[in-house]
């Protein structure tokens, strides 16, 4: 495999500048993959649960980053733009899985079953329960919960990704936390 030495400390502004320069765009894509590949993979994986789906969505995310690199606006953080594309790809994949007859929110049970199938045998039971509870959440609550809890983003950053108002995001996060706690409490007792 071809190895390219990459400086992981390069700032996002510099990466964004390279991305918009055709002669350096490929190198910028490598930098993005090295810096954000793993966090984006986990963000997508938490949304779609199955590894193969996460792989497809992450690949599409990166191809779209390259394809639409000239549409990136410096007004927003590079990370927000990347997460926005990754979130859209996750949603697209879930919509395809849901088909014409049902909404993405109807996939809860199927995603919950995938959590059990995809989890390592040695995984902590409460950690698995947390993922099951997240899988059952409506998509908006799931998105804001994942971005806030796992990626530790501010509501302002999440607003740039989802386009929802701060108040809506806060409400959705609040509902998500309550539902998760309820699910874990109920299933821990069984």
């Amino acid at each position, binding site marked *: *495999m*071809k190895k390219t030495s990459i400086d992981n400390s390069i700032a996002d502004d510099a990466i964004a500048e390279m991305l918009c320069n055709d002669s350096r765009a*490929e190198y910028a*894509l*490598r930098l993005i*993959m*090295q810096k954000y*590949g*793993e966090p984006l*993979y*986990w963000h997508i*994986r*938490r949304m779609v649960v199955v*590894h193969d789906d996460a*792989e497809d969505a*992450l*690949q599409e995310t*990166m*191809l779209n980053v*390259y394809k639409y690199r000239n549409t990136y606006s410096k007004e927003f953080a590079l990370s927000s733009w990347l997460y926005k594309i990754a979130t859209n790809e996750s949603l697209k994949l879930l919509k395809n899985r849901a088909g014409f007859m049902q909404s993405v929110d109807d996939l809860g049970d199927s995603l919950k079953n995938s*959590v059990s199938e*995809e*989890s*390592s045998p040695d*995984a*902590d039971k*409460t*950690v*698995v329960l*947390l*993922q099951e509870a997240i899988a059952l959440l409506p998509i908006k609550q799931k998105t804001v919960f994942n971005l806030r*809890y*796992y990626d530790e983003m501010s509501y302002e950053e999440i607003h740039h990704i989802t386009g929802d108002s701060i108040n809506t995001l806060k409400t959705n996060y609040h509902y998500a*936390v309550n539902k*998760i*706690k309820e699910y*874990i*409490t109920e299933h*821990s007792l069984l």
Partner: protein
Amino acid sequence: MIDLEKIGREMPYKMPDHFIENLTERVIAEVKQPAKKKSPIYLYIAAAASAAAMVLLLLNPFNIGTMGIPDYENISECKSIDEMFQTMSADDLGIYSMMTNYYGESTL
């Protein structure tokens, strides 16, 4: 009550070894490929469909019929089939005869 912070941010799944490196190479290989040109097959299909439509238009027996055979409204005005035949020209009768031989009388 459950404290989510105590559960932590660990994931129950595993990411395959070297997954990001391998995916990076695949993505780079993909973006290096020149933009795929659209296959000209659709041009052949469109041309074939146009040719087929032209042939059908030229050979359609109903087109031929409109040159002489009374249309549906005229048929309803005819007192009898015999009277309808009387309104047909010799050429029309020839075509009718040819079509009857070819398709059979019941289908016409």
